[in-house]
């Protein structure tokens, strides 16, 4: 606080008494409009306190007379978005899969809706891009365990694989080694034969012996030449595309202990329009037949 008001000689303005290295600060008054703007912001904040959630308390906060919450706003927005999607979803539910494919706008909508549902429901196992993981099939290539037509994919998504649903896709590979149906040597031979189907065998003799084992035990489901059978969920063994792995040790383990991948029946969890959109989306990932 200056003890004495000093006037600047040049401008005639009073100084604040603050001085830095001989430079003195002029006491130029603030404009009144600035002061009133400041009061206006205070009034604004008081109005805000009253209208909106503002003050924290020990268990929660003041609600504000408008009752507005951020969560409520998001819920309302989601509600509105759902309502806006309604007409297209009803059209998709009422159309056959073929009709959806043929209609440009339904197809585009199904692709977008399918992508979003895929990211939520399917990506945890099949990967965000549908590339799969060990035990979870790749959906991008054209090798399908249970069939790759639009209808096949639709049925698989609806009822799933090896689950409690009545219409679930079911098949069970025998545990050839664990249940003593084949000896360890026979399993080794048949694995060598399976490798030879994708031209990877290094032991022609074992493969030859394995061919006989295959003809006796495996051909009923996996078919001649290992081309597989989607009717029974028997994978193609010749394409060098593997769900559980294609090295010899993994094939031996698959024959010894069998494999039984499982997938939920989505009809119990999702509405028909979403399942249809998923089928169209998965079919369009690249491998659809």
């Amino acid at each position, binding site marked *: *606080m200056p*003890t*004495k*008001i000093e006037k600047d000689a040049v401008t005639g303005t*009073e100084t604040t008494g603050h001085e830095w290295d001989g430079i003195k600060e002029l*006491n130029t*008054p*603030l*404009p*009144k*409009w*600035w*002061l009133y703007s400041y009061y206006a912001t205070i009034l604004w904040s008081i109005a805000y306190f009253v209208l909106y959630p503002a003050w924290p308390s020990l268990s929660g906060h003041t609600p504000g007379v408008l009752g507005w919450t951020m969560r409520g706003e998001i819920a309302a927005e989601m509600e509105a978005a759902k309502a806006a999607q309604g007409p297209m979803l009803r059209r998709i539910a009422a159309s056959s899969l073929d009709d959806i*494919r043929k209609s440009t706008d339904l*197809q585009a909508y199904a*692709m977008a809706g399918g992508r979003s549902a895929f990211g939520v429901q399917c990506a945890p196992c099949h*990967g*965000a*891009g*549908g*590339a799969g993981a060990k035990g979870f099939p*790749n959906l*991008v*290539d*054209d*090798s399908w365990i249970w069939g790759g037509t639009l209808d096949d994919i639709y049925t698989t998504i609806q009822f799933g694989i090896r689950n409690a649903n009545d219409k679930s896709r079911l098949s069970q590979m025998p545990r050839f080694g664990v249940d003593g149906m084949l000896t360890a040597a026979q399993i080794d031979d048949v694995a060598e034969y399976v490798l030879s189907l994708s031209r990877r065998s290094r032991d022609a003799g074992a493969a030859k012996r394995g061919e006989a084992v295959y003809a006796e035990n495996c051909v009923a489901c996996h078919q001649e030449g290992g081309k597989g059978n989607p009717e029974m969920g028997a994978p*193609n063994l010749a*394409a*060098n*595309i593997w769900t559980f792995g294609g090295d010899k040790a993994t094939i031996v383990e698959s024959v010894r202990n069998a494999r039984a991948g499982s997938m939920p029946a989505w009809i119990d969890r999702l509405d028909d329009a979403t399942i249809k959109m998923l089928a169209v989306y998965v079919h*369009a*990932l*690249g*491998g659809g037949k």
Partner: protein
Amino acid sequence: MDGGSTSETRVPPSVAVDEAVSTKVQIAAQPLYASRIKVHPKSVSGFYRTIKWAVLGFCLSVYYLAPWLRWDRGPNAPDQAILIDMPGRKAYFFMIEIWPQEVYFLTGLLVIAAIVLFLVTSLFGRLWCGYACPQTVWTDLFMLVERWIEGDRNARIKLDAAPNSVSKIAKRTAKHASWLAIAAATGGAWVLYFGDAPTLIGEIFTGRASVTEYFFIGLFTATTYTLAGLAREQVCTYMCPWPRFQSAMLDDQSYVVTYEAWRGEPRGKLAKKAEGADPWAGRGDCVDCNSCVATCPTGIDIRDGQQLECIGCGLCVDACDAVMAKVNRPLGLIRFDTLANQQARACGAPATHKFVRPRTILYASVLAVVGSVMLAALLLRTTVEMNVLRDRNPLFSTLVDGRIRNAYTIHVLNKTHAEQVYTLRAAGVPGAVLTAIGDDTPGDTLRIVAKPDSVANSRIFVTAPLAGLRGDASTKIEFRLDGASGGGRAEYRSVFLAPGR
């Protein structure tokens, strides 16, 4: 206190003295907050005032009439010459059409505008502030209305001081109502740039326009009324950053409003002298009539020298010239001049104008470079653009027959006003075939149809035998898009990935 001597000398040395001054006294001496001192500019006529009216008329005409200009673009595009189509994500300016991807045209335009401003300021001073700035134009218009309703400077000062009466309230009401009407028209014209003007104007008056449109009309009504009617010169002195740094563009060769102190001083009222005596002997030309101060829209005295508040409008030049003509002294006591010239004139040396200076050369060359780049970009603007995004998850997939497939998402931007059919080819990968969703037949080409003025998105698959890739994990692939006549062409280089050897 007794006249003349200070209190210190009267205090006995043994008593400690506190020289504190009560806050009341301090506030009385120096208020913490200052009210605006209202400026009452006096009307003036003359050369610069005429130019200022002309610029004002031109700027307002452009602003209010430009949305009504039509420009035929065919049936698939709007026919408004200047239009910012927010929902359609396009901007139209006569023959130029800008997509959001090309917002650099706007950047370039703003850069050019800034450099033009720098160049003009360094050559001719604050022409922008004094003549063309919207704040100046609308404030001038509001002052004109004020003068029509309340009279000129003296009448307005009298009215301000007068007690409330029916006529005062009537005048005030008329003034503010007129201001609000102009402000509303300003806001109304603003939104016309964002929609079809003839349709929109009908919707605005019949209450069918959108909330957004009414909001912006309201916003611009409020800002125009506040800034041009109430705040006025405070916008220039408190709010606008330009006066703060425009002095960086000025030097002693820039034209600014100057007062010829060397011949004006010592100033004084023109006194009657004895017959035959020279009334101008021993005094300057300035008759201290304060006309320059009375006409100044920012309320400063130009005779104090260069000031931040001076917007360079030159109205004080007109006012002073009128007085100088009356008293038969040379015109131009207050004039647009360079500071260097003023120094020269003060010594009786001839005035020289130096327009070519390192500063102006620099500004002009930067302007030429940016202008040429933008012009070239505009002339080379294509009618079609293609962007290719390759799938990263998975990078590739192996098919049952052993071939490798990569997936790409292709965006084709059709910037023409007609539907276009394009042919897509891929080169660089031996034996590659193309398929797409909805086009399962493998072939060398794909057909892509794009609606007028829109983007066609398609997901395509490129499938190639592993043998042709020679074990390369990454092979260069070039997509080529050919339009039918007038459709243009585009290329995009990407890669085709496969398992490495």
